[in-house]
């Protein structure tokens, strides 16, 4: 009995014990796969520093950073004002690191007679001004919007960069994969997903629309050069937040993410390395 109690105590203590050889990353489900790949590859080269990754959502990641349960919070959205206030109240200084970029692809069925789209048209569709394709192309079918839930990073980003309120009739799907499934069935749907989800033949039956802003050229979200030069309109940063005092500890991993190997892994996962 006594030894059992000691064992329990040991586990309790060891879970609190914050050593210098482990980096705990928590947060965004969008970024979790990429972070796992990076951590695994990193471990091959540096066995001294252990990187453990778990998902759970951007909100959970930032809350864990606040509670000291994580060293890095992955977040697919920028930190909210209310969250920043919580850190200030606890007097924890934090900083952010953008480790990759995500491009938002606008997707329709390949049966829809449209080849590119302007940011203005996108705005009018998403805010509910255009409810029928007839106001854009000669086709009399209602537009159904397929997007993400209101507090996902993707939704947040599209909303803020276009400065719109989403139409209340927009469908809110649980994840990128479901948006793709829905668009494959709905010939007059209009959806947005992370570009990584429409790579590698995942987009059979779908069309990824090149986007142009005002009088500029249209660029595809799959165009690596356009993204690298910042020409695609909808490219968003993927954040990692950390406590400033931990910087020295996590720096080797952040450096790895910026390295050539890191950039290759990022690209293979369907995201884009940062502009150099």
């Amino acid at each position, binding site marked *: 009995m006594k030894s059992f109690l000691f064992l329990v105590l040991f586990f309790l203590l060891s879970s609190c014990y914050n050593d210098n050889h482990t980096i705990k990353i928590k947060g965004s489900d969008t970024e979790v796969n990429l972070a796992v790949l990076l951590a695994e590859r990193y471990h091959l080269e540096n066995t001294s520093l252990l990187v453990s990754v778990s998902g759970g959502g951007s909100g*959970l990641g930032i809350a864990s950073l606040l509670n000291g349960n994580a060293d890095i919070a992955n977040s697919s959205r920028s930190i909210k004002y209310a969250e920043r206030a919580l850190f200030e109240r606890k007097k924890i200084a934090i900083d952010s690191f953008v480790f990759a970029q995500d491009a938002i692809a606008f997707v329709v069925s390949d049966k829809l007679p449209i080849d590119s789209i302007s940011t203005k048209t996108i705005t009018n569709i998403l805010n509910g001004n255009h409810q029928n394709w007839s106001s854009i192309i000669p086709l009399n079918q209602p537009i159904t919007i397929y997007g993400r839930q209101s507090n996902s990073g993707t939704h947040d980003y599209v909303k803020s960069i276009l400065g719109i309120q989403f139409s209340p009739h927009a469908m809110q799907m649980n994840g990128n994969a479901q948006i793709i499934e829905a668009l494959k069935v709905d010939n007059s749907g209009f959806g947005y997903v992370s570009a990584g989800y429409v790579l590698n033949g995942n987009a059979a039956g779908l069309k990824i629309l090149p986007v142009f802003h005002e009088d500029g050229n249209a660029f595809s979200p799959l165009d690596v050069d356009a993204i690298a030069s910042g020409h695609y309109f909808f490219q968003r940063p993927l954040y990692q937040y950390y406590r400033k005092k931990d910087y020295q500890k996590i720096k080797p991993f952040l450096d790895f993410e910026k390295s050539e190997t890191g950039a290759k892994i990022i690209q293979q996962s369907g995201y884009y390395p940062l502009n150099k």
Partner: protein
Amino acid sequence: MDASRREQIDRLNKFLFKSTGLLTITLLGGIFLMLFSNSVLFFLDVSPVDFFTGSQWDPDTKYSFLPLLVSTFLVAVGSMIIAVPLGIFTAAYLSELAPRKVQMILKPIIEMLAAIPSVAIGFLGIVLVGPGLASIFGIQNGLNALNGAILLAVMALPTIVTISEDAINAVPKSHREASLALGANQWETLFRVTIPAASPGLIAAVMLGLGRALGETMTVLMATGNAAAIPEGFLDSVRTITATIAIEMGEVPYQTTHYYALFAIAAFLFLITLVVNFTGEYFANRLRKFHS
């Protein structure tokens, strides 16, 4: 084994069972407390009037419970409209008409429906029921309340069939014999005597099925589209309370109004399910008293 040792073991067991029982109650109390303390924090930020009126759930600006409530009931009641006749007639067939052999095969199969994971049923909703509804009704997509209702009906069926069957079985044989002796045929006996006599049990079955439908998350999350506006009919996309919590909990900034709002709607769902389940239990108990 001497007596004092046996007494000791008895006392230990008593303590053990008492503590497990208390643990369950503590857990329920803890959940209850957490839901309600967080809800109180929400209502400090948002007035209850705005919460119960209004027409859109758009966190950070509009916290209206109404579309979620309407959606939840639309889907749950819709599923009952499908599942109740189906379930009660299946139960009647199983207990009154089916040959013993068919009964032996059919009953486990119906109970197996309950073993299908909800995410698998939700997936069927996306790839099978949704496109089917779209082509039947000539609409753009089948992610709507009707889709959710059909799937939930399938999920609630095992509950309804099992409890209804028990209720119909429990009707004393003398009722049926009396009816037949008075010259009623088998159908008249079933509809005029057996089913009315079993009605408290049938109501219990419906209530417990409804409780299941109200609390189901994954299936409705996947199959109903989750648009935040108040639905106008079964072919509109809906967004239930459960789906809203599941979809938003992951990304929500902690300890903000939005975070508390999710606890508040969870508390209301808890109350609704509690009432429905109590009603079900009440009728189930009445049935037990009636037949014993």
